[in-house]
């Protein structure tokens, strides 16, 4: 069936036909996938082999300068008129070797065991076994090993090694390149290289600092956190809680309800997960569409006092969130001002249980979140809306399009084009929205059926906070597991949206 035949069918029929086509084409797609798989492997393989080919070529065909670069980074550059960059490379290598000797090797050697508890003098501590939980704990005063720092320094060392490998590789490649340049009589000095940083290599100039920041303060901690999920880091080790061990997949088994004392974790986790998704969906889309509508209302040409309307909404951004949320929390208490006034006016006879009834509390957090979020959306939309080329509307008006039609055919597509990544980010942000939930309801109302202190408006993220901060057993390992679960859910959803999003596929449509 061709596309035209499909389009001529009625809408609902088209829908089912599409599903039919999807399933009937599955075998073909699968066979294509398996047929292309070897080529895919070959492509990946050739990419992986390429660096080795470069190194091999540099070693066999290189002169003594290039070969010396294998031992001393940057020598090829120093002897080919790129003195400054060569020296920088060389200094990096020196730093690396010094670091490895003094810091790197001592820490990374403990990585396998995460340290043995010792006291200040270096004697191993006494090992006890907890009768109830069966876990080992150690008794030693003033122990010196700290597993957290062992993991941290090991990670830093590994990151540093990767950097060194890259510097080493690129310095050899550069040396070979300069050698080849000499043969054909081309020259590249320090000055030439510096010039490329505002033209060809401008991306490196712009991204150097941002990327370093993200790698050190986001990627490194994330790897750390993932590793924690495979240890037994919690405050159960009262004797020496700073030394813990690898436990493999034990925490994941606990999460699945297989470990002793963790039976209720799985149902609790699933219920909280479902509520988290419902919350994120409503919180994102109510804010987005209502915020856009408010921005459109204010943006109308005939509306006066634009500044005033905007300022009113913006006052809510100006007051710090935790202040306004605590205030709203006080306002909607059972004996709070709203219930008081409603009772005085005789509208209700008994207080509305805003925070103690699960259903009402859930609606309340979404409503309050609208109050918090709409001004932000309004702010973003205002700028972008004014950026829509006016001639699009003009021609639509000449063709006699109604306002609604113009909104559906011009405004909305344009907004979605610009803001889809923002929407995805908002969705993710709402799944991890700690402030609104925690400051407003503290996850309550509590219920007996949930494990580990979780309440009925708790998101995964606030539950995770409770596990690590407010609960007596600060169970970092389990909360890392929850963190990984949150990540898997979010990554799955948003990658689907992201790959379907128009603004990602054709970024240049409006340029």
């Amino acid at each position: 069936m061709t596309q035209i035949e499909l389009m001529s069918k009625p809408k609902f029929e088209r829908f089912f036909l599409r599903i039919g086509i999807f399933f009937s084409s599955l075998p073909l797609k699968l066979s294509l996938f398996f047929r292309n798989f070897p080529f895919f492997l070959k492509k990946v393989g050739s990419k992986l082999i390429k660096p080795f080919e470069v190194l091999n070529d540099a070693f066999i065909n290189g002169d003594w300068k290039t070969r010396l670069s294998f031992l001393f980074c940057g020598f090829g550059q120093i002897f080919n008129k790129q003195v400054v960059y060569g020296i920088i490379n060389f200094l990096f290598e020196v730093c690396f070797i010094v670091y490895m000797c003094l810091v790197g090797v001592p820490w990374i050697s403990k990585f396998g065991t995460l340290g043995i508890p010792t006291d200040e003098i270096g004697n191993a501590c006494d090992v006890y076994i907890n009768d109830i939980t069966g876990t080992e704990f150690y008794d030693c005063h003033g122990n010196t090993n700290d597993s957290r720092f062992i993991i941290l320094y090991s990670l830093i060392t590994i990151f540093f090694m990767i950097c060194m490998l890259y510097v080493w590789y690129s310095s050899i490649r550069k040396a070979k390149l300069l050698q080849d340049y000499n043969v054909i009589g081309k020259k590249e000095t320090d000055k030439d290289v510096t010039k490329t940083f505002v033209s060809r290599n401008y991306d490196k100039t712009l991204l150097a600092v941002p990327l370093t920041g993200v790698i050190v303060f986001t990627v490194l901690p994330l790897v750390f956190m993932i590793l924690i999920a495979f240890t037994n880091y919690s405050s159960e080790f009262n004797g020496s809680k700073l030394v813990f061990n690898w436990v493999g997949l034990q925490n994941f088994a606990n999460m699945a309800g297989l470990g002793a004392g963790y039976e209720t974790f799985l149902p609790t986790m699933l219920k909280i997960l479902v509520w988290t998704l419902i919350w994120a969906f409503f919180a994102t889309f109510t804010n987005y569409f209502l915020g856009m509508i408010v921005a459109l209302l204010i943006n109308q040409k005939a509306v006066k006092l634009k500044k005033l309307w905007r300022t009113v909404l913006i006052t809510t951004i100006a007051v710090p969130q935790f202040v306004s949320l605590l205030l709203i929390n006080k306002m909607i208490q059972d004996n709070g001002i709203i219930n008081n006034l409603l009772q005085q006016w005789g509208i209700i006879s008994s207080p509305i249980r805003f925070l103690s009834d699960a259903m009402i509390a859930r609606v309340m957090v979404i409503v309050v979140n609208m109050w918090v979020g709409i001004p932000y959306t309004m702010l973003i939309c205002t700028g972008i809306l004014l950026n829509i080329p006016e001639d699009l509307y003009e021609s639509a008006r000449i063709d006699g399009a109604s306002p609604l039609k113009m909104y559906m055919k011009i405004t909305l597509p344009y907004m979605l084009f610009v803001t889809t990544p923002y929407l995805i980010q908002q969705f993710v942000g709402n799944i991890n929205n700690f402030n609104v939930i925690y400051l407003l309801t503290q996850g309550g109302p509590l219920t007996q059926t949930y494990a580990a202190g979780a309440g009925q408006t708790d998101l995964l993220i606030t539950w995770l906070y409770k596990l690590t901060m407010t609960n007596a057993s600060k169970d970092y390992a389990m909360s890392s597991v929850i963190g990984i679960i949150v990540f898997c859910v979010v990554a799955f959803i948003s990658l689907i949206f992201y790959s379907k999003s128009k603004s990602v596929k054709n970024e240049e449509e409006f340029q």
Partner: protein
Amino acid sequence: MSKSFSSSIRVRKNIRLTLTYIVLAIISVIWLIPFVYIIAQSLSVDTANFSVFFPDEWTFDNYILLFTDQSKPFWRWWLNTFIIAGCTCIIQTLITLATSYAFSRLRFKSRKFIMKTFLIIGMFPSFLTMIINYFLLDILGLSSSIFGLVLIYCASSAMGYYIAKGFFDTIPKSLDEAAMIDGANKNTIFFKIILPLSKPIVVYTVLMAFTGPWGDFMMASYIAQGDVQLMNVAVGLQNLALVGEITKYFSRFCAGGVVTSIPIMILFFWLQRYYVEGVTGGAVKG
């Protein structure tokens, strides 16, 4: 005939406009109620009467106490936060704009990969990373300094590139090409052509970077570790609002909230005319 037709259009337009005003008025009231409530409470003599809207007796004492009580040095918290917000604002804006520009306008080998990676790592719950960030600051010797906070706020700001990149994507590429023909390098294009055209998004980025630190509680409380001299406004005020203390300090807490919101409001007023201006209107047509 034609007259009545045009007047019916005008009537319809007027009805629409009136409706718009009514909706806007209702919205304004809803958004202002908590704000009026906080101001009213901050002027109350009774330190903790949540259940009436306007207090019976009015006083300015809460504001005076805010600045004179040495055990709860609010001015210190305010100043700390102001310094943090100022530094963060400048650095974060530069980083965010540079990243977005690179992703939007430059084409380099690992662009898609880095963008996807940022998207993916942005999905991990961020405060699990806080403990480790605290350790990292400890290694750098910044763990009990407000500049440690600045570093943390700025370090991950590259990951918020989405909005500015979306905006840069809509600026016509013909501008770059025209400048390139005139012999400008990429650096000049960025600073002299794209940035001046992007005022709304620059202002938006500045605003968000400035307001963020005023409300941050978690990382700031790690850094402060209970030291009142190192607290920011959020941690300090939270100190006033602890379960046992709130009945004693509630109206002062409200006063603190009001004072905190002043610099942000001034900034918003001042920058408002920029972020509502259109951009491509005057640049290149068609």
